[in-house]
């Protein structure tokens, strides 16, 4: 039986009292996202995302398979988020039936797969008979809250970075070209959803839940593990750079003011924008580093102006 993490009463009081005084343990502001560190591996589609102490690794891979019979024009896309005791003793190996684990994998599924972030039609090779199956394996390495936000970033960076081997189809014959023979091709990513999680605290009595003018509810962005364990309610919104809301998840907990939702979305949009830019910069830097001989090998002539 995996042990739940327990926080001593004194510490939990301290954390809440700090929040009441507008302070967080890691000296962040309430609406400040932890700085995100994105590390790309040698292979395509190998990403490690670090947010504070939270660390998530994502690996994209692909194989050729047969499409579903009722969707002959589409390829397959899976996301797997399995926990292991590596992230902390509260996780059990191969057991993902816990409430948090299910919620986490559901939200990522909704944010990335069901929002159509990956163009599955582009994965089709021969309609009805052959297609690519892309899988994203998310590995939680270290848990300090914000798994949803970090894994979403990791999966998206992975998909943007990944390249699948080129195939050529002539009639019925499908030929797969190994990576060393032909330049592999990137996946079709249609938009980049970014998840931002909000945590709500109600430092007063439960009666305070009846909202009024004097409501002293606290709302913070990107909670750490301790804050996550103490929070009374949570909200995850997923946006992309086009100002579209991809997904909103508010699974029970503390009721919130309807107008706060708008406010949260506004805050989340700023974060989304910043992270999307960061992702693009990281990918661009990686592409140039990989392709340092491109300028020499290119047969293009510089355009005279």
């Amino acid at each position, binding site marked *: 039986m995996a042990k739940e993490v327990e926080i001593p009463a004194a510490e939990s009081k301290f954390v809440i009292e700090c929040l009441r005084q507008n302070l967080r343990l890691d000296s962040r502001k309430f609406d400040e996202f932890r700085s995100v560190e994105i590390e790309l591996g040698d292979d395509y589609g190998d990403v490690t995302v670090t947010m504070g102490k939270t660390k998530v690794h994502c690996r994209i891979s692909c194989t*050729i398979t047969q499409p579903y019979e009722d969707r*002959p*024009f589409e390829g397959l896309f899976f996301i797997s988020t399995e926990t292991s005791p590596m992230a902390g003793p509260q996780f059990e190996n191969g057991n993902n039936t816990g409430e948090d684990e299910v919620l986490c994998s559901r939200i990522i599924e909704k944010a990335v797969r069901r929002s159509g972030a990956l163009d599955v039609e582009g994965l089709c090779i*021969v*309609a*009805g*008979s052959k297609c690519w199956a892309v899988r994203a394996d998310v590995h939680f390495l270290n848990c300090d809250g914000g798994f949803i936000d970090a894994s979403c970033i990791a999966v998206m960076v992975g998909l943007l970075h990944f390249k699948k081997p080129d195939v050529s189809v002539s*009639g*019925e*014959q*499908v*030929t*797969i*070209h*190994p990576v060393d*023979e*032909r330049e592999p091709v990137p996946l079709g990513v249609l938009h980049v959803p970014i998840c931002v999680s909000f945590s709500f605290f109600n430092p007063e009595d439960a009666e305070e839940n009846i909202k009024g003018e004097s409501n002293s509810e606290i709302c913070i962005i990107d909670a750490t593990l301790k804050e996550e364990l103490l929070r009374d309610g949570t909200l995850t919104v997923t946006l992309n750079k086009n100002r579209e809301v991809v997904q909103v998840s508010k699974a029970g907990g503390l009721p919130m003011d309807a107008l706060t939702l708008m406010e949260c979305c506004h805050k989340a949009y700023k974060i989304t924008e910043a992270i999307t830019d960061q992702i693009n910069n990281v990918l661009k830097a990686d592409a140039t580093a990989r392709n340092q001989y491109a300028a020499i090998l290119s047969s293009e002539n510089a355009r005279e102006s």
Partner: protein
Amino acid sequence: MTESLELRPITFHPDVLARIAPELSMQRHLSLGLRPSLRSFEEFRNVEISDGGLSFASNADIDRKGNNILGSNVLKCGKTMVVTSITGGIVEENISGSRVDDESTESSNRADRLSRFAQVHPVVEVERGRVGAPTDEEMTLSQRLRDCVLHSGLIPKKALDVAVGIRSTDSEGISSILYPDEEENTISSGLKSRRKWSYVLYAKIQVFSRDGPLFEICWNSLIYALKTTQLPRAFVDERTADLKIPVSMRGRSATFRETFDIICDASKFQPLVLNEENVAFASNFAIIDVDPETELPKDEDEMQVDQGGSVLLADIQGEAEEASVFSTISIISSDAGRLKHFKVIGGGLNASMEHLKKSLNLAKLRASDLSAKSSSGDR
């Protein structure tokens, strides 16, 4: 007046002692120059094999219809009985870029060793009187068997290629099946060149009354079963060979060209061609320290069998041996002495060079013994 107290040593029946103190029982036996199974140190158990008459090709009397077993073996070793049945399927292979070139150039410049060899997919079931998820032992056994078949190069990949025939019906309504390798003239089959199919082999290995480590017994049974394996010929019907299915969905339409049915011909079959020089058999050994402390008091004039040190035991059997042995050696060797697999689990003991050499020699002898069995067997 004091009451006299009598101390008497407790004695146990050998069976009871083996159960409650396996290590002590083991050491007592060793000090007598015997093992709990009453075999001597380097003596193997006898192995009885038969093909069990399970496969569709083994016996014409069996109703061939619905029998999908391609090869089989029943192996008895001591109390343990292993039943292996080989089944198969046909899958389409993906053609990768470098394979488009001619076959001849392909084989010469492919240095990738394992791409020349095929594997089987074994599932080991150790019967323990109830059903349930496979145990760790079963899973590791299956995986080890798979790895060893692949790495030993037992089955050349070519042996599993399917030469697909075509069944055609002429104007009189008589259908005949033509195979590309039988009648070279008739079909220049466009079908064959475009797509490539191959057999996959599955092996179901059932173990009854487990009595010691199983890997070696399962391996030997698998090898015997593969030797009896016959692959059925397969063909497609001419009419379905050029099947087109129009599909339209959400405004798009396409035509699938699919050959859906590859039919197996139960009356015609060919033996599975193995790389004979890579056929090898497995044996296991244990190294155990003889503890002089546990020796029973001996008569003055009796010779001491062993003065401490460690001994090599062949063919581990029984609870007492399994429980008290931590260092094991497992060898797959051909009768010519080519090694295919060698595994030493050190435990806490120092596996000395002499022991390794001795075990390799014994493994080789055992392999030639076992391979003689299969050729002289029930053919």
